[in-house]
């Protein structure tokens, strides 16, 4: 049994990372070329890590499923990246960024990790600027900042609405420099399907070449997974279509604990689904809630009317009614839950999907009246254009429609302070790990975490692991390597040749997605979770009996790719529900309906649930391990948005 020791250093919070770095072992520059490191995924965490390890002189092998490392889904992040530079002299500090982040996560994350994140935030901006990331600037030439996600200080750095793109292209360019130098070798259109573990240590991976179907093993001294989150378990999400859990799930099935799988974030301002063929949802910046008023018709019979024909007294500005103090600016989870509640009551608007109208109005008419459409255009022009191109409706004339969508997963592989999973030599960085966001993530901190892990944390801790270990040479004919390759091949064989092939991968993906959305979304309860667990166990059986994959497995076969990913989402979905059932409290992004205050507010239970739930794989009966969260430096408080 692994000991869930987080390896957090002791002493004053401010000095912990510094002290820890000093205690870590180093590898001399001339010796680094003797070590091989595998990095999977080329998003912010992966690309920045490849670049940094390559610059340091290690041999890095990088893999991604996209056709180029530049296409990882970090590219779609819009808002910005936080850093406690305090350029605006508004009282920001490392301590305040740390406190906001841990409070935002509803006190379900480690103090030491988050403090380190806040400390490193400033270096990220320096690094990105030196790479040529074109952040917004003032006329003076200084960097500009904005306030984001309800914080009281302006600490967010941004590049219009494309901050993720620009940061990723910065990391990609640095990684490209190292590919040219020969320190990093990269393979695109490759999917990791197995971890190779020898003598208890991660020593390699098995990948499938997505074009030729060839299965190959790749060996190294350690493996780092930078493979992103699992929002696509819900089928419809704001993630790219290819985002998947397969890499993290393989690691989990091989012994890596999966932490807080039910901690997922649902974003309130997305373009609603319009029909059964909908393949993904698009996020619109939360800044829209600064000026838009959210409402739904008071009367169900008005729901299919033109919104402009609905009289003022027949409109329910429900967030303003329910939360008079914060109104339309309540946090994401509260807004999302309220929106879904209105639609579940039957007061939704827009297209009917599965017998329900999924949407509420986000209305800009009063701000347009107040400041004029030109001013509104200056502020939100690109968002309005984007909305119009997706829906064909002009938001200057007709209120926008919005509906929540899964957006980010705080849960992920359990890692210690060194970002190492419970498997020796297997690290996880960025959204793939669980470490920094607790039960909810603040705006503009996903980019910060991915880059902190990749540029600054993992390069140090991976080196320490390599320096302390001994690594016997392994060849591709090692029995463990052969058996890992065989298990991948067998699985593909089973996917291609189900006993009674009937349904496409998307059919099963929609099924699991809809169960998770209903039972393990923003609001959960015991009965529905228990039912969901039963249904998912049945779906898993049906999947392996009835999955239908056409074409050939020795070929470019997107149906086969999807089938493999859906199989993993089904198993992960089961664990998400098990975790949600275990957590008998409401906290962060989710509400357990049995554990809400009378006011409807979330009721955290620190005494009984102040822990990270780290699950060990055991088919349908996962084993729970706990990492208790101690708060030595701050006192957990409760939110109140009434």
């Amino acid at each position, binding site marked *: 049994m692994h000991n869930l020791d987080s390896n957090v250093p002791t002493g004053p919070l401010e000095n912990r990372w510094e002290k820890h770095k000093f205690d870590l072992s180093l590898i001399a520059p001339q010796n680094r070329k003797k070590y091989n490191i595998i990095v999977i995924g080329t998003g912010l965490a992966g690309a920045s890590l490849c670049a940094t390890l390559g610059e340091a002189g290690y041999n890095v092998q990088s893999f991604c499923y996209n056709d180029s490392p530049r296409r990882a889904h970090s590219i779609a992040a819009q808002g910005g990246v936080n850093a406690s530079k305090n350029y605006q002299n508004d009282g920001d500090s490392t301590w305040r960024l740390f406190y906001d982040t841990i409070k935002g996560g509803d006190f379900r994350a480690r103090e030491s990790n988050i403090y380190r994140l806040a400390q490193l935030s400033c270096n990220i901006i320096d*690094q990105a*600027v030196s790479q040529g990331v074109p952040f917004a600037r003032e006329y003076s030439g200084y960097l500009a900042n904005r306030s984001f996600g309800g914080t009281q200080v302006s600490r967010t750095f941004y590049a219009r609405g494309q901050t993720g793109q620009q940061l990723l292209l910065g990391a990609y*360019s640095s990684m490209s420099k190292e590919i040219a130098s020969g320190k990093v070798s990269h393979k695109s259109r490759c999917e990791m399907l197995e971890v190779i573990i020898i003598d208890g240590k991660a020593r390699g991976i098995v990948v499938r070449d997505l*074009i030729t179907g060839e299965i190959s093993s790749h060996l190294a001294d350690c493996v780092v997974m930078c493979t992103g989150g699992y929002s696509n378990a819900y089928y419809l999400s704001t993630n790219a*279509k290819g985002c998947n859990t397969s890499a993290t799930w393989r690691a989990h099935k091989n012994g890596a604990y999966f932490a807080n799988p039910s901690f997922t974030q649902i974003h309130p301002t997305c373009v609603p689904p*319009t*029909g059964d063929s909908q*393949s993904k949802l698009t996020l619109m910046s939360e800044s829209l809630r600064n000026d838009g008023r959210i409402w739904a018709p008071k009367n169900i019979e008005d729901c299919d009317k033109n919104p402009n024909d609905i009289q003022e007294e027949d409109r329910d500005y429900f967030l303003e009614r329910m939360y008079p103090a914060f109104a339309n600016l309540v946090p994401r989870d509260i807004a999302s839950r309220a929106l879904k509640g209105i639609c579940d009551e039957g007061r939704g608007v827009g297209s009917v999907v599965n017998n329900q109208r999924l949407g509420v109005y986000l209305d800009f008419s009063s701000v347009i009246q107040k400041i004029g459409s030109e001013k509104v255009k200056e502020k939100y022009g690109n968002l309005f254009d984007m909305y119009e191109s997706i829906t064909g409706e002009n938001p200057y004339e007709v209120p926008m429609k919005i509906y929540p969508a899964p957006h980010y997963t705080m849960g992920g592989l359990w890692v210690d302070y060194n970002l190492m999973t419970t498997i020796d030599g297997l690290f996880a960085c960025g959204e793939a790990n669980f470490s920094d966001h607790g039960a909810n993530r603040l705006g503009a901190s996903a980019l910060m975490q991915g880059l902190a892990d990749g540029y600054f944390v993992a390069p140090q801790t991976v080196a320490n692991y390599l320096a302390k270990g001994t690594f016997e040479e392994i060849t591709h004919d090692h029995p463990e390597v052969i058996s890992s390759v065989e298990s991948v091949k067998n699985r593909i064989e089973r996917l291609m040749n189900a006993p009674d092939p009937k349904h496409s991968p998307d059919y099963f993906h929609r099924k699991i997605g809809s169960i998770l959305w209903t039972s393990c979304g923003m609001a959960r309860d015991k009965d529905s979770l228990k039912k969901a667990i039963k249904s998912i166990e049945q779906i898993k059986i049906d999947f392996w009996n009835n999955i239908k994959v056409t074409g050939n497995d020795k070929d470019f076969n997107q149906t086969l790719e999807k089938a493999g990913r859906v199989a993993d989402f089904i198993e992960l979905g089961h664990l998400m529900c098990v975790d949600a059932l275990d957590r008998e409290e409401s906290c962060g992004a989710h509400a357990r309906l049995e554990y809400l205050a009378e006011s409807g507010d979330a009721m955290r239970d620190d005494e009984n649930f102040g822990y990270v739930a780290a699950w060990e794989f055991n088919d349908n009966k996962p084993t729970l391990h706990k990492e208790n969260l101690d708060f030595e430096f701050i006192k957990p408080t409760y939110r109140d948005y009434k």
Partner: protein
Amino acid sequence: MNFTLHIWRQKNTESNGQFVTYHVNDIDSDTSFLEMLDQLNEDLIEKGEDCVVFDYDCREGICGTCSLVINGHPHGEKKATTTCQLYMRDYADQSELWIEPWRAKSFPIVKDLAVKREAFDRIIQSGGFISTSVGSAPEANSQLVNKDDADCAFDSAICIGCGACVAVCPNASASLFVAAKINHFQRLPQGKIESTKRAERMINQMEQEGFGSCSNHRHCETVCPKEISVSNIAAMNKIL
């Protein structure tokens, strides 16, 4: 809505391809173009046939993966839009659609509608970066950047590397892609130092990859989903 689709099918890089005709029916007008193809693929699975391979990922116009030529237009006729942001209501008056991959020697077809664009990655590897290393960066505000320069750099930096500029160019030139990257860095003080060397290397690599030269057709600017201006190419030529 019902459509007749003539789709380019090609088993792999080596084999010859041809158009194959399919029919899709009962498509909702709010369905995106790629969701329409998803539905075709669901029909093909139902019939036990191999699905049409096409590239996509984010489906929100930013990753640069999607790449179809629709009725002769890379990313379709709609301006400033990637294929994934097209909706079937845009095709109400065109019931017959010819769907092809990008066509350029440097972008070999891997299967059906998907092409290999690693030539772009190699161009970036040849010099599309600032030679800075992690840890050596000075305090971010220690070097001021004129706002106009920062904005211009941004306008060039938004290239998504989709390759539509190459697909539409009669010479299959990658000039717009290369120039956008060169100009992005050249506009910034931290990138200016290496700009001549960078431009030489990247242009050299572009030629080695088999892309043609620019002969001022300016089609690239017209199809660019991010509306990157050909003035980038003029700026690039000035550096050399």
